[in-house]
């Protein structure tokens, strides 16, 4: 799976490449994917095969790692409907596939989940889950847990209704589907639902916390990461922003958007929910990764999930009860003054609230948050969580949005720019026990790539101008870097090859929301382009170009 394990640590136990030897890393594979859009996926290695899922049209490649240059074993073209490109908010990305029991599972932009025989590349089943005519797409990497393929939809900018579905891994049949808005029976809320805070308790809040029938087009999509605790048999995932972005069109807490659900994997029944952004004001989807750790808190070891949230707070939440132990800022925040741990509520700053007919300036963090989808890594050797993230602020002008099925439903003019300090990206090494940053690396461009930690005490990540870097996991010192053909917004991985050696693999290929200016050929003269991200990225076309390539690095033989 892209996150390495169910706890989503992205930690590789391989140590052949370490502080001393990393200088010798050389590219052993350098091959184009023939795709020019944003490559956000993790290359997946199982045995002696590497699997790659490209952005739309979502071609899947199986590469033979036993042969030099990793030739293609098979290729599968799912042929998604081209019209799906018109309802993909933020480039036509795909975050990768997942392997289980001889099968490779992945999603297509036009809303299908497909199971392939991993050996032959033949299709075993395919299920149509999302409806592009309503603005739904699927971009996330599925997770297989308890014999089920877990898949959620994208489309929070199109007035869709969010859901997470569980499909039987064998047949593709729907086992359960949990909506993020609407009556309790649709959200799979029953007697076993015990949220910790009073704000999340009550009947049919998925209807009552919305005006009229707004919940039917209220968002809460599930396009991010899912973690799984096999002991508790619970899955954890976050829900996306409410729709439209203009908050005045949806008074109320807008349950169950922008929060985190804990669900029983076999029935889908909700166990608890915590809403990090009641009545979200800024598109602060709560879909970021949950890293499952056991941490000493108040003198006891507790099972927690650690969540670097889009709103800029690092949440430490009890896996069993949903209690928030701490929520500390890991980036610059002026739109909220903190999190009230008694009520669980985020405390917003009134002067930064968007209002129809006004432009509110200097809102930090910006719409993609202090951190977007790109996942962190945790090293048990250093005890640090490595968070690749953003330092962006924005101006927002709200206006009434019209709902027209299959078209955007946003109601906000946005312009983003660098936050305090002028650097647009940050890599923070966060100490979850001491609840503060151990060190930081400031990056000029926004960080849109995932992180990879290894037992060699290295941390790998990439920048949007194509530098692939290895830094010392203890202090962040730069130990090795190489310039790739295009910006890096994917998820680096490490694996042991069939020859027993350690390899590091990464896809380059700029794009995504942050890189749409280059990947989709936008015009930088309009600062509001790509939901306002263009304004912060005007220099990108001179610093990288669109090109999908797979790179694999290794130490020289002998």
């Amino acid at each position, binding site marked *: 799976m892209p996150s390495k394990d169910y706890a989503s640590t992205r930690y590789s136990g391989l140590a052949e490449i370490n502080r001393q030897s990393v200088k010798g890393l050389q590219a052993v594979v350098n091959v184009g994917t023939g795709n020019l859009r944003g490559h956000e996926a993790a290359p997946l290695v199982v045995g002696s095969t590497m699997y790659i899922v490209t952005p739309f049209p979502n071609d899947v490649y199986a590469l033979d790692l036993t042969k030099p240059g990793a030739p293609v074993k098979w290729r599968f073209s799912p042929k998604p409907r081209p*019209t799906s490109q018109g309802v*993909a908010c933020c480039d036509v990305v795909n975050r990768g596939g997942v392997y289980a029991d001889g099968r490779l599972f992945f999603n297509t932009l036009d809303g299908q989940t497909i199971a392939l025989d991993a050996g032959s590349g033949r299709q075993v089943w395919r299920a149509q889950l999302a409806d592009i005519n309503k603005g739904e797409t699927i971009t996330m990497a599925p997770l297989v847990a308890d014999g089920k393929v877990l898949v959620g939809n994208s489309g929070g900018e199109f007035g869709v209704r969010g859901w997470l579905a569980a499909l039987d891994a064998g047949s593709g049949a729907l086992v359960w589907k949990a909506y993020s808005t609407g009556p309790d029976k649709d959200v799979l809320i029953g007697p076993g639902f015990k949220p910790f805070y009073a704000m999340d308790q009550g009947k049919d809040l998925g209807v009552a916390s919305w005006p009229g029938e707004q919940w039917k087009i209220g968002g809460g999509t599930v396009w991010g990461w899912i973690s799984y605790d096999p002991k508790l048999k619970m899955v954890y995932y976050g829900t996306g922003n409410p729709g439209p972005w203009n908050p005045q069109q949806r008074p109320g807490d807008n349950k169950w958007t922008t929060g985190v659900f804990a669900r029983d994997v076999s029935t889908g029944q909700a166990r608890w929910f915590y809403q990090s952004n009641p009545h979200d004001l800024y598109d602060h989807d709560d879909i970021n990764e949950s890293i499952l750790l056991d941490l000493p808190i108040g003198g006891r070891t507790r099972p927690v999930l650690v969540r670097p949230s889009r709103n800029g707070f690092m949440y430490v939440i009890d896996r069993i009860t949903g209690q928030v132990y701490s929520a500390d800022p890991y980036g610059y925040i002026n739109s909220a003054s903190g999190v009230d741990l008694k009520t669980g509520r985020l405390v917003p700053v009134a002067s930064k609230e968007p209002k129809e007919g006004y432009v509110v300036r200097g809102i930090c963090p910006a719409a993609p948050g202090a951190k977007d989808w790109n996942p962190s890594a945790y090293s048990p050797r250093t005890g640090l969580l490595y968070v690749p993230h953003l330092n962006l602020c924005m101006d927002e002008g709200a206006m009434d949005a019209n709902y*027209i099925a299959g078209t955007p439903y946003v109601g906000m003019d946005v312009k983003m720019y660098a936050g305090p300090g002028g650097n647009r990206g940050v890599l923070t090494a966060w100490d979850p026990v001491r609840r503060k940053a151990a060190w930081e690396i400031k990056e000029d461009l926004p960080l849109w790539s995932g992180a990879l930690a290894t037992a060699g005490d290295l941390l790998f990540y990439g920048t949007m101008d194509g530098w692939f870097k290895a830094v010392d996991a203890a202090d962040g010192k730069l130990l090795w870097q190489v310039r790739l053909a295009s910006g890096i917004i994917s998820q680096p991985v490490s694996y042991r090859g069939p020859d027993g050696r350690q390899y590091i693999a990464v896809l380059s290929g700029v794009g995504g929301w942050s890189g749409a200016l280059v990947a989709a050929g936008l015009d930088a003269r309009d600062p509001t382009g790509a939901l306002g991200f263009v304004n912060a990225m005007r220099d990108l076309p001179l610093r990288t170009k669109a090109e999908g390539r797979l790179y694999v690095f290794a130490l020289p033989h002998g």
Partner: protein
Amino acid sequence: MSSPFRTAEALLVLALAAGLAGCDRETRDSRGTPLPETGPSADRLDPRPAAYEGNAFQIAQGQRYYAWMNCSGCHFHGGGGIGPPLMDSDWRYGGSMRQIVDTILEGRPNGMPSFKGRITEAQAWQLAAFVRSMSAQPRRDALPSRGDEMSNREPLSLSEQEPILKTTPESDQAKPR
């Protein structure tokens, strides 16, 4: 005897007359003769491109629909995002008034939805006129001097005209000013 005042007045009148004669302002035909919903197949015989594009009222209406129909949700204020930019010289499906109207009404295979049934044909022409004003194709005095959007942007009446690339019929090519 002519006083200096008389001379000044005469000069002023002359200047005004000259000014009026030389001022070929865009026609204000806001009530106007109804335009046909269908036109001759040859673009140069169709009165609609010129009638819609040469008129500030029609462009301003198009600007309203551009926001109301969520065009701005994909193309933003010309720079693009989900859909391609509309302020540059690149036109995937042609940049003539008629081609843009076709694109709006019929949709295109890579994601542009069809707005047929959601707007009238006349509204599509108004929209097309505004879309072309994002690259300053219409005459300058018909271009909007302020935008409807929240963020402040340079008025379209001050923006540079972009050339329109080849897929567009001769009659709709940008006329250099």
